[in-house]
């Protein structure tokens, strides 16, 4: 009896400890970024592009990287959704009889999911060379799209699979075509689509390796798809690598900006998920 109670206590302590470590590191990371970044945070950081001598501590901000990152991650998420939603619907609704094929596809996406982002960067770079595209916003969007498609497809696939088959049968038995049935399923999974967007955007905006060769870097805000674009992770990397204290501090401020962007996206998608769960069965 005593042994069982001890066992209970031991594992409960283990769980509490693990939770403290996870929650603690979260607050430690966010805390460090705030502590180091806030002193260097000012309006210039988010409203100005780097001026001459920005990287040796003179005036300017990282507007170029903020806009570049939003373009790259936003563009890739939208492009990725346009590709992933049809794929996920096709696997789930049009391949019913062909289990082998759909399982093979799922496995392929699992493999893609696990491929490191530098490989996508390298692959995107090859595509760009083939088509003669320079390091540009377009190149970055293509590479990050490749990176987020597996995330989107697998998330959407999981969400679609939670839709009861009876709901599909209900639509079909009213005489709907498969596409009309798919639209009912899409309504049902709308909250899940926002989860997928959140995951893809979060991954896309934080990734360095995929944009390293493909998007390039520029001190200007990109005005067309063919111009190189700066991204926040790269900007953080460059600034933190500087020996100048002022520049390092701005690196932390940039990290803070990136964290806040992700936070805003998370809160926004949370609101949308709640809003669109209204009709969900």
């Amino acid at each position, binding site marked *: 009896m005593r042994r069982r109670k001890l066992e209970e206590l031991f594992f409960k302590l283990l769980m509490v400890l693990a939770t403290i470590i996870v929650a603690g590191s979260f607050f430690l990371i966010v805390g460090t970024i705030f502590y180091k970044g806030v002193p260097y945070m000012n309006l210039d950081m988010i409203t100005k592009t780097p001026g001459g001598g920005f990287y040796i501590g003179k005036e300017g901000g990282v507007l170029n990287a903020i806009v570049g990152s939003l373009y790259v991650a936003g563009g890739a998420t939208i492009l990725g959704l346009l590709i992933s939603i049809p794929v996920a619907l096709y696997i789930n609704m049009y391949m019913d009889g062909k289990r082998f094929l759909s399982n093979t596809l799922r496995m392929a996406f699992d493999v893609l999911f696990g491929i490191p982002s530098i490989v996508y960067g390298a692959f995107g770079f090859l595509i760009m060379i083939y088509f003669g595209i320079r390091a540009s916003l377009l190149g970055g969007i293509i590479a990050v799209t490749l990176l987020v498609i597996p995330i989107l497809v697998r998330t959407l696939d999981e969400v679609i699979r939670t839709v009861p088959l009876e709901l599909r049968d209900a*639509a079909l*038995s009213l005489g709907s075509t498969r596409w*009309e049935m798919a639209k009912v399923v899409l*309504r049902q999974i709308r909250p899940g689509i926002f989860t997928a967007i959140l995951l893809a955007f979060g991954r896309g905006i934080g990734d360095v390796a995929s944009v390293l060769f493909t998007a390039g870097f520029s001190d200007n805000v990109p005005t067309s798809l063919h111009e190189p674009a700066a991204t926040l992770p790269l900007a953080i990397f460059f600034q933190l690598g500087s020996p100048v204290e002022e520049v390092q501090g701005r690196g932390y401020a940039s990290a803070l900006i990136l964290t806040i962007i992700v936070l805003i996206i998370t809160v926004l998608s949370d609101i949308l998920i709640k809003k669109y769960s209204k*009709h969900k*069965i």
Partner: protein
Amino acid sequence: MTQTPHISVQHLNVHIADQHILKDINIHIPDKSVISIIGPSGCGKTTLLKSFNRLLDNTPDIKITGNVLVDKENIYAPDAEVTHIRKKMGLLSQRPYPLPMSIYDNVAYGPRIHGIRKKAELDELVETQLKATGLWNEVKDRLNASATRLSIGQQQRLCLARGLAVGPEIILGDESTSALDPVSTAIIEDLFISLKEKYTIVLVTHILRQARRVSDYIIFVYMGKIIEFGPTEEVLLNPKEELTKEYVKGYIS
């Protein structure tokens, strides 16, 4: 059984993977009556029901042979139009599955996909069908509320209204009351009885008392075969087959 058959099944065989689910089914389902399919779990009742509106089509590894004639038209013919066939039949599943939209849109969904766009026409259809299922007075003030806000019994009646709104000839019920409380069950059963004036109703049930209360005919299915088919009282009280006798008495289940 002098009425013209509404659904005729001829030599229907269904295999899923290497299982023989339905074995050489032959049956004529009469028009404008309630027919209950009874039998133990896993005997193929639901498969038989779903073969009537081709809902089995999407099952992996399925093989269907034989003919099912609805209004003398073979629904398994290569040129059969599947949406047209399904429109003829309303399905009421075990649990209500309202579409993820408002009460109004649930009923209007079917008519809309079949081309009715006019607001006035849709309004009238929605009101008529909600009245037919006795739901109108309960929901008329909150038609734009989410269908999921209704009680489960109300949801099931909404699903029935939704099915009736596309103007079917046949209602298929797959243990439609099994998730409902006794009061809701009684309401649905009464609806079936009153609806048989206009529709042919085929129900799968494992509640013999329910089969007795609502149906005119009973089909007893066992291990994928039809063992007995006849008027309710005859099958339940005076079965011809030994297996039916044992099932009705509760020896096999």
